[in-house]
């Protein structure tokens, strides 16, 4: 990718203005300009923003609640809205209705699609009142059916809507990642900062300690800490304990990076220049080191995100992390654990797609940010 460079010396007015704009732009504007040119990263950011919004406003986007059951549609396949069927076409998308009949062999009653019934998709349908993010009351959902239930991505064995649950799970999984990253960042900044600042014996001790912690395989370590959570804890307690565990295990990698960044910036020429011209340490840290440091830290935070999400998913998947009735990607994938379950209801695997897409998005954003983090690199 070509770096954004100062426009060449030239005579025309517009070019001169462009040059002026470049030289007067702040560091963050320059970073944004460079990031914007990274198309993959922009796409990743768009995907992630969509996910975050869907999760944040799950009460509005999800037609049903995360634990709401539809007893007449257990393990039901996805219903894709369509415009045409054997009875002709309409302009409004619809799904086929269902009817109950007896299985001729087992005589058990079962639900089968009925191609003669058309349920038209409704937007902004009325629904029982809930609260967006717990405080903004809403009485409508983005879409739904009137008089029937729509299961875009099918239902699980209890008849809960996979689409709705996935949105609520997105909220849990992303927010647990954010909190985990923040906690590990706080630990890393204090510990890595101390190592970089004091140097000497403290630095050596902290360095060796982080090395040793990193020797223990990560997921077994997470699992050991998660296993210690008392079984009788409530969903909320487990949620916050999980963020603590993610943070507590995640810090060594970040701390090492923060330390090495601090050391490399400390030896930069402009820091030496500031010191030689008599600036106090506090001024050097605040005015010279912190600004160039912040963008690198953000990159590190974004890069460490996927690990948090994957760890949460893995732990919940094997039953050591979040537990039902909490809904996260990992908790949902628990249902897809056995081969029989995936065989009968492959749509249970849909949340895995979200995990993969979220991790990919974070990775490409991280790449884009890393390229953009030092906007003066190309111009030097």
């Amino acid at each position, binding site marked *: 990718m070509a770096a954004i460079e100062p426009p060449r010396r030239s005579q025309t007015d517009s070019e001169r203005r462009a040059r002026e704009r470049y030289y007067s732009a702040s560091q963050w504007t320059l970073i944004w300009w460079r990031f914007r040119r990274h198309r993959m990263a922009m796409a990743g950011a768009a995907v992630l923003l969509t996910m975050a919004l869907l999760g944040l406003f799950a009460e509005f986007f999800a037609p049903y609640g995360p634990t709401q059951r539809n007893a007449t549609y257990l393990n039901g396949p996805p219903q894709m809205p369509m415009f045409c069927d054997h009875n002709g076409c309409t302009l409004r998308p619809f799904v086929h209705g269902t009817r109950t009949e007896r299985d001729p062999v087992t005589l058990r009653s079962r639900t089968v699609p009925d191609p003669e019934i058309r349920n038209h998709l409704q937007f902004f349908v009325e629904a029982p009142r809930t609260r967006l993010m717990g405080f903004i009351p809403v009485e409508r959902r983005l879409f739904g059916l009137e008089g029937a239930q729509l299961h875009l991505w099918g239902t699980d064995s209890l008849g809960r809507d996979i689409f709705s649950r996935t949105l609520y799970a997105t909220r849990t999984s992303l927010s647990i990642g954010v909190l985990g990253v923040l906690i590990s960042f706080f630990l890393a900044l204090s510990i890595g900062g101390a190592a970089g600042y004091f140097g000497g014996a403290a630095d050596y001790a902290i360095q060796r*300690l982080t090395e040793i912690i990193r020797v223990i395989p990560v997921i077994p370590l997470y699992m*050991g800490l998660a296993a210690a959570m008392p079984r009788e804890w409530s969903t909320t307690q487990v949620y916050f304990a999980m963020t603590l565990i993610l943070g507590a295990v995640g810090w060594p990698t970040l701390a090492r990076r923060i330390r090495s960044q601090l050391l490399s910036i400390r030896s930069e020429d402009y820091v030496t220049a500031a010191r030689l011209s008599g600036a106090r340490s506090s001024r050097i840290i605040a005015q010279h080191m912190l600004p160039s440091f912040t963008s690198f830290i953000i990159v590190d935070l974004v890069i460490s995100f996927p690990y948090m999400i994957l760890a949460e998913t893995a732990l919940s998947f094997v039953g050591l992390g979040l537990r039902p009735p909490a809904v996260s990607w990992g908790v949902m994938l628990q249902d897809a654990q056995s081969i029989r379950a995936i065989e009968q209801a492959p749509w249970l695997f849909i949340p895995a797609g979200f*995990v993969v897409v979220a*991790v990919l998005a974070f990775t490409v954003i991280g790449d884009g940010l890393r390229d953009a983090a030092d906007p003066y690199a190309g111009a030097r």
Partner: protein
Amino acid sequence: MARFFVERFLGMLVTLFVVSIMVFIIMELPPGDYADRFAFRKFSGLGITVTEADIQAIRVELGLDRPAVERYFSWIGNIVLRGDFGMAYAFETPVTRVIGDKGWLTLGLLVVTLLITYVVAIPVGIYAAVRRGSAPDYALTVVSYLGLALPNFMLALVLLYFANRWFGASIGGLFSPGMQQAPWSPAKLWDLITHMWLPALVLAWSALAYQIQTVRATMLDELGKLSVVAARARGVPEGKLLVKYPARLAVNPVVSTIGFDVNRIFSELPIVAAVLGLTELGELLLRAYLDLDMNVAGAILLILTTIIVVMNFVSDLLLAWLDPRIKLGG
């Protein structure tokens, strides 16, 4: 060389000591202790009322009332001196009996996984660097992104699904159904080998994606070096030139990260093992955690970490042998 060896060896011992303390802390974390669970298992359903005093008596009998430091030293002492990891509660047998030959199975799985990783990653990485910007190179970049984004256990699920769908066969497990309990024999060994390649491939997945990128990046650096240009100018044939200069050096970062790869593989192991039904240490570790059988969990965690530390040591030695500059630099 002797000094280098001794230094690294001492470093390894220190690491193992600190690791064992951390493992012990993890074993102590869950609420309640062995005495509680022992009393519960032994007397539940018998109509005997167990009082706090009875539990305390068990605690004294088993030496669990001693301070943690003392218990740590007796725990680690027994492991180092007698290879005794204590008792497993769930089975009321020594941990070593519960583990049995699972340690060797795990080690075998690890070796096969590493072999697959390196046999594929090194040539493919070199190829991608030489054919930089070609379609296969881009395809490999996409695959390596997926290597991070698609966790190994999900890959295992996907493979299980398609194997079932297309071949109608179950591909999990380390043995055929009848072979699991059979005594070791050449037939059983062959059965193991035919079953092992798939779990090994799943476990190698993310390490593979990572190493391909490492080899490719190092190769790109090395390909631009003057030594390569000079050799080309001398008329050294391209194939020979690749092996002699850049490829030799591109292997170094791979060798120096063997420990990391082992770490990555062991990290994924418990969950992949649970999905694929592999009866080895990872699966046992997961079960031990779920049952809070912390003596077994601690033993396995310690064994896995020891293997990683030893592999780190081996990789240091290998690297010093491959690249003498490292040794001189200290």
